[in-house]
């Protein structure tokens, strides 16, 4: 197991967002987390690299328990790449510098090495020609691909994607999902919070359905999406897959 989440709880004030999550991800597995908004999917992801401090429970990544108060959290986070809904490229740095700065400051790579590795990953995600552009000059799809390259340049063991296509124009979603599919085919361990059901069905090994802070259903992607065993999953999927039907199950 590369990611082990056990009895994870998270409260914001009196609001309990995660209510005892158990989730294991094997090395090389692609897991999609789906569910209605407010179900706690993003909070779960953010707890896995401790951007949110869990209220209780444990998170272990690659054998290191991140929830241990004595752990070197910066060192632990190097194993975990994170891709955000809002891309979060460093707005004052060029594309190339976005990739080289963390490599140099965190991994202490030489400038030459960092640039070589950055260019390699930029070409993998198909934005090699944009290395001297500033983030604001790129389309959303290009920005998100650069953000993926930036995370990959740190050689993570697992990649977390927090709704990576949710703030993209519809015609730009495909290029980002394409990069993610390629990543999955190359054996990257991925945990993806998404509303892209086609991606979940085709690329993910497993789909986890969350609602109200608990895992409602967890199984092979084809089975969860096409033949969900729990009523709540069925209602959610029916609404997402047939948004023009007001209430298809009634």
């Amino acid at each position, binding site marked *: 197991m590369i990611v082990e989440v056990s009895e994870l709880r998270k409260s914001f004030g009196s609001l309990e967002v995660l209510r005892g999550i158990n989730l294991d991800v094997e090395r090389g597995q692609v897991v999609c987390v789906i569910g209605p908004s407010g179900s706690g999917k993003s909070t779960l992801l953010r707890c896995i690299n401790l951007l949110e401090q869990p209220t209780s429970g444990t998170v272990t990544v690659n054998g290191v328990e991140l929830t241990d108060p004595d752990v070197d959290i910066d060192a632990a986070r190097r194993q975990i790449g994170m891709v955000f809904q809002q891309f979060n*490229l460093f707005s004052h740095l060029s594309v190339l510098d976005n990739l080289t700065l963390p490599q140099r400051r965190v991994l202490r790579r030489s400038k030459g090495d960092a640039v070589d590795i950055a260019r390699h990953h930029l070409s993998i995600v198909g934005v090699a020609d944009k290395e001297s552009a500033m983030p604001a000059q790129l389309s959303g799809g290009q920005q998100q691909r650069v953000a993926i390259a930036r995370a990959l340049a*740190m050689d993570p063991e697992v990649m977390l994607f927090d709704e990576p296509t949710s703030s993209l124009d519809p015609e730009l979603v495909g290029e980002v999902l394409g990069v993610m599919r390629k990543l999955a085919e190359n054996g990257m361990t991925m945990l993806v919070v998404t509303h892209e059901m086609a991606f979940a069905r085709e690329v993910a090994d497993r789909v986890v359905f969350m609602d109200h802070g608990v895992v409602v259903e967890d199984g092979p992607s084809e089975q969860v999406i096409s033949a969900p065993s729990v009523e709540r999953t069925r209602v959610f999927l029916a609404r997402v897959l047939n948004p023009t039907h007001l209430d298809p199950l009634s």
Partner: protein
Amino acid sequence: MALTKRQWAKVARGVQYVVLVLIILTIALAADWGRIQSAFFDLDVARGMFPEVITVALKNTVIYTALGFVFGFAWGLMLALMRLSSVGVYRALAGVYIEFFRGLPALLVILAVGSGIPLAFPDTSLNRYVAIMIALGIVSAAYLAETIRAGIQAVPRGQVEAARSLGMSPAATMIWITIPQAFKIILPPLTNELVLLTKDTSLALFLGSTLAQQELTQFGRQQLNESRSLTPVLVAGLCYLIITIPLSQVSRRLEGRAGSVAPAAAGRGGG
């Protein structure tokens, strides 16, 4: 014939122009121009100020401003970080400092540093440049700290989260991500602060100095006493404007470029 609203407005505007022209004409005709010229702009007196007004006075004003700003910025950055610290004592100390020195006239601080330190420690000879740098820095740091704090807080949270998720430490994130972006955001208010500081160097007047240490205001006043003409003050004023107007223009242009991203930083009103 009844006039429409628009026609009335036209007439009213015409009347205002006529009144304005009459006032200007009256002043122009009634004034004793010879006397005004000798009082405010005596060319011989003005000529006599050169080159010292540039090579000494303007130079010293720039030096005092630069020293005060560098010290004030460094100390202000420190205070801003203390203000944002998770350690309550730091927050409180910085808060007290900022409130204290923003509430005092800059002149009082300059007097305290420039005259107080030599009084308290008669053996130490405080270099005048250092004294002014410290005094102006102490005051401007209080204002700059609030500007810098506002800038740091205006950096989007996602930038910090991205840096931390890549394994960067809080300190590295602050140095490489937050501060450079905050600096970009606060460049307009920072330039504004530089203008205010340029004018505040005139307060060094009250410390007394040798000729070589005089800045524009002191130089202007000394020449005023010698020449019995206001010309030196006018020339000194023009020298200030040579510095401050371009700076204000730069600030305005930066503000335009920053658009709505710039925070309503806690700048200083008036000089």
